[in-house]
Structures are given as structure tokens and as C-alpha cells.
């Protein structure tokens, strides 16, 4: 027994010490894009650049922001691949990004990039309504945002906690902007959110728990990013389907940036370019259900579901300046006065 234990310890230590690294240059990428996509680009890039070892850390975009901010005195990451425009705007304000103008800069609309080249858009993320297709028939599923506040969904909606989620903040923000555009006041928007709160069963802290609760029918209706729902629908057994809201939907821009203080600026730029070529964009669309932000990619080269979706999507006019000026205040009001109030009635 004793001997077995010490033998096991020695064996374990031998295995562990064998994991030494080679002498390639290490390029560190922080990204929320998930293992599959990151591994795909890692392999391709390392093949083209045999002297570079790409290492990525997969985490949520808010978490990347926090990490980059915490590491500001001693930056560890070289490339930040993936975050909504709002998050990158914040990072820009905090001086965390290194401006870089990619070779394809003109292929992006002005609202899809930073005016001072701190970040550029890579993918587009429409927000959609999702439902559990085992529990809700397609004909009965909500078709538009306003269907979600119908009392028949009371206790059946589960969404991410909007305080922690950039996606939910964007949806709530769009509702508020709509209210201001129609009435000039935020009150109608707050009223809408109050009704949504009354129907909401739970605000989950992360997407995984959201998918799990949705798949296991703790809640049957939700709203979230279309590419993520499409991934669940096409790649997992979780019975989820989604609807593109008929009146329009916020179209978020997801981007890429170089971290200020990177120790490998040259290699970082090479990676930046590598993952944003038209071929890389089409591969991401085919294999990882991303919608390219570049305007110079012909629709005919993209998969069918994206062409269908792009035909149906009506981008909601979202004024980023109004959002940036008021979103924090709206969310604060929601958190203090609306959250969890509806359930008690």
C-alpha cells in the first residue's frame, strides 16, 4: 500500500515534469469564442508560422476585460479576440488596447469599428428569442419581443442576469431606446421590463446554466445570441429552436483587438490578420456558425442558414452614443426597482 502510494507519486511527478515547452515564441490569445474555433485557428496559424506557439485562454468577454485590466501593469495577453463593441469601447476608454489598422479596414462599416483603430468588427451577432421545442410548439412560440410580456409566459422565461451579460444589456438597452424614440420618455420601457420581470422565472449567472435550465425545461423561453442558439440547435442534443423577432433586433458587433503592452506586436498583428481573412470568415461561418462582419464577402459563399437569417433580420436602429450615455443609469434603475418585483404580485 505504502509502496504503491509512493510509486504513484513518483509516476505522477515524472509525467508532470515531462510537460516542458519548446522554444517557439508564445503568443497568448484571450477569447470567448470557444475551444473548437480557437483550436481550428491555432492549428492553421501554427502551420503557417512554425516559429510561433499560439496559446489561448477561453473565458467570457467581461472576464477578459477584467483580466486585461488587472494585468495592465504587466500585460500577459497579446490578442483579445472577441467581445461586443460596448466592451471594447470601455477597454478603449481605459487605455487597454493597442491601435492597429488591419489591411481590410475599408471592408467594415464605420459603426463596426473604433474610430481610432483600437478594435475592428469580426462577426455580427443578432439577438433572438429561443424556446425549448419539446415543450413549446413552433406555432405557439413568441414571434416578437412584445409577445414575451404576454401573461401566458408567466414563470416560463429564463434569461441571463442582465447586470453580468453584455448581450442582455444590449437587448434591454434596445427596448429602452425604442421607448425613448416613440414617447421621448423611458417610462414605457421600464413598464415593458416590469412585465418581463413578472414572467421571468430566473436570471442565471452564466450562459451554461441558462442552456441547461432551458434544455431541462426549468424555463422554456429565453432570449440570447443567435449563433449560440444555432450552435445548440445544430450541434447538441439540447432541444432548442429560435425565432428572429419580426419587428427588428439589435445587431451586435463582435470584434478583435491587440492588447496594449503586448510583448509580440508583430506576431499579434499576424494572428489578427490570419483570423480575419475572407477564407477564415467563411470557415468560421461554415464550421462555427459565425456571421462575418466584413462587407466584401459575397453572400453566395455563406451557408444557407445565414443567408435565410440575413434576409429576415431587420437591424434595430441602436444609437451607440445614447446607449453609452444612458445604459448604466437604466440598468441601475432596473436593478434597484424592477428586478424580482414582478414575482411577488
Amino acid at each position, binding site marked *: 500500500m505504502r509502496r504503491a502510494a509512493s510509486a504513484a507519486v513518483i509516476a505522477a511527478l515524472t509525467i508532470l515534469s515531462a510537460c516542458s515547452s519548446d522554444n517557439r515564441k508564445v503568443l497568448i490569445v484571450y477569447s470567448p469564442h470557444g475551444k473548437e474555433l480557437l483550436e481550428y485557428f491555432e492549428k492553421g496559424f501554427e502551420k503557417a508560422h512554425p516559429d510561433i506557439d499560439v496559446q489561448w485562454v477561453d473565458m467570457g468577454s467581461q472576464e477578459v476585460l477584467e483580466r486585461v485590466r488587472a494585468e495592465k501593469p504587466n500585460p*500577459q495577453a497579446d490578442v483579445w479576440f472577441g467581445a461586443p463593441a460596448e466592451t471594447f469601447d470601455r477597454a478603449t476608454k481605459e487605455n487597454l488596447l493597442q491601435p492597429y489598422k488591419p489591411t481590410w479596414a475599408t471592408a467594415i462599416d464605420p459603426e463596426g469599428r473604433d474610430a481610432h483603430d483600437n478594435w475592428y468588427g469580426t462577426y455580427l451577432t443578432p439577438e433572438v428569442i429561443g424556446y425549448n421545442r*419539446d415543450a413549446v410548439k413552433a406555432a405557439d412560440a413568441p414571434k416578437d419581443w412584445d409577445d414575451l410580456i404576454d401573461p401566458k409566459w408567466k414563470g416560463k422565461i429564463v434569461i441571463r442576469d442582465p447586470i453580468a451579460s453584455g448581450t442582455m444589456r444590449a437587448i434591454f438597452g434596445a427596448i429602452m431606446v425604442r421607448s425613448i424614440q416613440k414617447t421621448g420618455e423611458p417610462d414605457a420601457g421600464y413598464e415593458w421590463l416590469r412585465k418581463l420581470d413578472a414572467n421571468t422565472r*430566473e436570471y442565471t449567472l452564466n450562459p451554461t446554466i441558462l442552456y441547461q435550465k432551458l434544455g431541462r425545461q426549468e424555463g422554456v423561453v429565453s432570449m440570447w445570441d443567435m449563433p449560440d442558439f444555432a450552435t445548440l440547435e445544430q450541434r447538441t442534443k439540447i432541444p432548442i429552436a429560435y425565432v428572429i423577432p419580426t419587428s427588428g433586433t439589435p445587431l451586435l458587433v463582435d470584434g478583435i483587438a491587440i492588447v496594449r503592452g503586448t510583448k509580440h506586436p508583430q506576431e499579434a498583428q499576424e494572428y489578427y490578420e490570419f483570423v480575419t481573412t475572407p477564407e477564415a470568415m467563411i470557415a468560421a461561418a461554415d464550421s462555427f456558425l459565425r456571421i462575418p462582419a466584413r462587407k466584401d464577402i459575397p453572400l453566395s459563399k455563406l451557408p444557407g442558414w445565414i443567408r435565410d437569417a440575413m434576409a429576415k433580420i431587420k437591424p434595430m436602429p441602436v444609437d451607440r452614443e445614447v446607449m453609452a450615455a444612458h445604459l448604466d443609469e437604466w440598468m441601475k434603475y432596473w436593478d434597484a426597482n424592477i428586478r424580482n418585483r414582478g414575482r411577488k404580485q
Partner: protein
Amino acid sequence: MTSQQRQNWLIAVPVIALLLWSVIYPNAAVIAGSFENGLGHWREFLASPADREALRTSIVISVASVFASLAIGVPLAFLLGRFEFPGRRLLRAVATLPAALPPLVGVIAFLFLYGESGVVTRAIQRTFGMAEAPWRLQGVGAIVFVHAYTMYVYVFLFVSAGLERFDATLDEAASGLGANTWQRLRRVTLPLLMPAIAASMLLVFMNALGSFSAPYVFGGGLRVLSTQILASKTNGAMGLAYVETTVLALSAVAGLGLFRWLDRKRKYTLASKGGRARRTIRSRRIQRLTSIFAAIIVVALVLPHLMVVLVSFARDGSWTTQVLPPEYTLENYRRLFSESELWRPIYNSVSMALIATAANLVVCFVAAYLIVFRQFAGRGLLELLVALPWAIPATAIALGLAATFNRNDLATGRILLVGTFWILPLAYFIRDTPLVASAVESSLRQMDASLEDAARGLGASWLMTMRRVILPAARPGLVAGGLLAAVTAVGEFVASVVLYTHSNRPISMEILAQLRALAFGTAAAYSVLLILLVLLMTLAARSFEERLA
């Protein structure tokens, strides 16, 4: 100054300086940070209903966790300490099992068992044909439930140890004087056990106050201080985060003060060694009932571990509305072992745990030696310094380190650790200092202080005395404390989530990343590896101890 005193100071000053630098300095930086804007951030905190609610909820959860842990731990300690019944050995063996479940893993296991769509919940719902789940694992109740499961172990261990030292003759004397069972319990047993109970209550309170993973997963919009700190940090409101951290640490220190004060009011000491045979339960019926009861507890204690193992074999995404996962596969393990980066986090966690524990052993041995055997002016300060990290929640420790060691500045004693490998070993070292120090201290207290003088008197050199007298006496504490420290460090989550960086990504962060990718199966398989690692370390420590004994 005599040469003895000079020597005391020579050893004490570096240890005290090291602890002041690593424990006090970062926390001072946090407090200073909370005032960076005068009283502005404090006003913001006091005006925010969300923060007031978080403070209230944190305290409610902590107090409730203390009572829930007492309600489980004390009866269980009595049952196992006082009675003999079939199944006792098995129950004793699994009673401390919850402590071996790493924090994040335990919470996830509970979600799969008792969550709205968990195994137990769905089974009850099916059996009784209910339309809705019988309960929801959410909010304060859910968090206290998880805390009670993981933290009752402290109460159980402390009270069991107290019962072992208990002098049976006192109880018999009371009985002889005509006291009935209830009177004996109330007037003799409980007062004598009070120090053990109070110490364990304190430990549960501290742990519950700083707990992060349970509110993080079950919170569902519930606000507690530890998650509120993370939220402020995410929003870039560092000043407010510092205020919240300071308030959290102050609540802990207030709790510490309160318990110390309660403890001081009772002064009973036990002179004898105690020892008492366990009573065999005579009545067959009660014996059978006790065994059934014990069996139920054993199942409840083992269930979360079994759940992790079960999920590690379930096919991801296949488990929707069924009671148990419908499809099983080796895929999760295959994926783990095919991954070239699999060993990296394990290697990181093990080496960081070893580094932190080695430092703990050296520093805590010296500190405990000084506290137990030497008289000098700084002794009280040293005692306070080694115990203080108990009272500082891990989030506060982590935030302090991040705020202090973010640049090289020798004039203010700062070195750049943020973004380097070394910041996590330092955090683990601080967290585990009280654990190792108290274990070594209690070992040394059992040694007769005159032995050291006797050895020196017989002409043994200082080194010889250390090696042949003091170290052997400290050994049980060093092994037990070191093992506990290493096990805690290897699965650490709360400080790691704030401080980790690419070069030192620990196991808990890898599990979190797998959960994020919806790979529950892979996360569970990884958790199984972590549990095995803890088991392996325990076996190694035990065999080491046996060889030395």
C-alpha cells in the same frame, strides 16, 4: 538584553516582518483604496440599496449556515462518539468526505442532484406525480443547504475531538448526584464542549461569509457581498469594490470579536485525559432505527461524489427531462486524455500547492515554536498575525494582493507579482497559514517545555536540539497541517478566480472553462481527477507519517 532575548528577536523579526508584509500590507492597501476619494466611495456604498441588501444577506446566510452546521455536526459527533451500533465504522469513514469535495465541484454536484431538474428532485416529482418540481434550489435556502453539507465537517471534527478528551467521571458523578440525562447534558456536557463548539461556529461563520461558489451558482439574482465585489470590479468601480471588501473583512473581524467575547465568558478546563468506552445500544428496535438513520446519512454524504462520477460518464446534452442521464460513454475521459494541455493546469496546481505548503511549513513551524516556547515582547503580535487570515475572506486577500503587488517599488516594499506565476502561491500561503500554524502549535503544546532545556543542558547544540527534540514533537502537526494546506491549495477557487494568469492557470479555472463550454461531462471528468489527486495526496501523507512513526 540577554543572549536568549537577542536570539528570540533574531528569529522572530524576519517571521513577523514577512507576515506583516504579506498579510497586513495588502489589506491596508485595500482600506486605503476605499478612501482614495475621501468618503465618496463610502457614501456611495451606504446610499446603495443593493449593497445594503448584500451586506444583510451575507450576514443572514452566515448565521443560518452556523446553525445548520451545528444541527448536523453536534448530533452526529455524539452519535459516533458515544454509541456503538452496526454501521458505525462506515459512517465514521464517510463523515468527513464533504471536506474532500473541491468548492466549485460540490456546488455543481448539488445542482445535478437537488436542482429543479436534478436527480432527487425529478425522482420525487415522478413518484408523486407532481406537475411542478417540489422545490427550487435557489436563493438563501439553497446556499445554506450547500454550506451545511460542506461546513458541518468543522463542527463534527471539533466536537468529536472535544468528546474524546471528555472526562467520563464528571458525567458519572453528576449521575450519582441524581441528575437526569437532560440535566447532565445541559449542566455538564455542553458547558465542557463549549470551547470546541464556539471554535467551530467561528470557523463556519468565516467560511460562509467569504463563500463565493455557492452564491455564484445558485444566486439567481441574490446579492451577497462576495459576488457584489466581483460585480463592482467587472464594472470598473474599483473604489466601491474596495469599500465592499473592507466591509466584508470588518464583518468577519466583528464576528471574530463576538465569538472571542462569548468564549471568554466561560472558563472551564479539563485536567484529565478523559477516555470513555462507547455504549452499545441495547434495545434491538432502537439499534435498528439507528442503523437505518446512519445508512440514510451515509447515502446523503456520498451522493454528491457519486453524482460527479455519474455525470463524468454521461453523454453531454443527452440528459434533458429524464430522472437519470440516459446515455453513458467514455468520451469525456477520452477527450480529456487526448488533450495535450490537460496536464498543464494539474501541473500548475500541484506545483503551486507544493511551493505554498513548503513555505507554510517553514514559516509556521518557526512561528509556532516561538509562540509555544519563547517569551518575548512581540509574541502577542505574532499570534495575531498567524491567526488573522482566518478572519479575512479569500476575496479580500486576493483583491489586496492585486492592489499591492502591481508594480516594482522597493521604497514601498512592492514587487510586481500581478500577471506572474508567483501571485497564486503567495495567496495560497496566506490562506493556509492559520491552518498549519494551529496544527503545529497544538503538537508542540503536548511536548514538555523542559525537554528543550534538558537537551541543551546535556550539551546538545541548538541544531541538534531542533533536529532531535523539537522537530519530532512538531511532526504530527506538520504532516496533518501540511496535508490540509496542500489539499486546500490544489482545489482553491475563490482567490484563484481573481488572480490567476495564463502561466499559472489552476485546476479550478480549467473546470470553470469546461462548464462555460457546456461540457458538463468533461468538467465532471476533470473533477473526478481532482478528487483522485486529493485522495492520492492523503495516501502519500499517511504513508509518510507511518514510515516516520
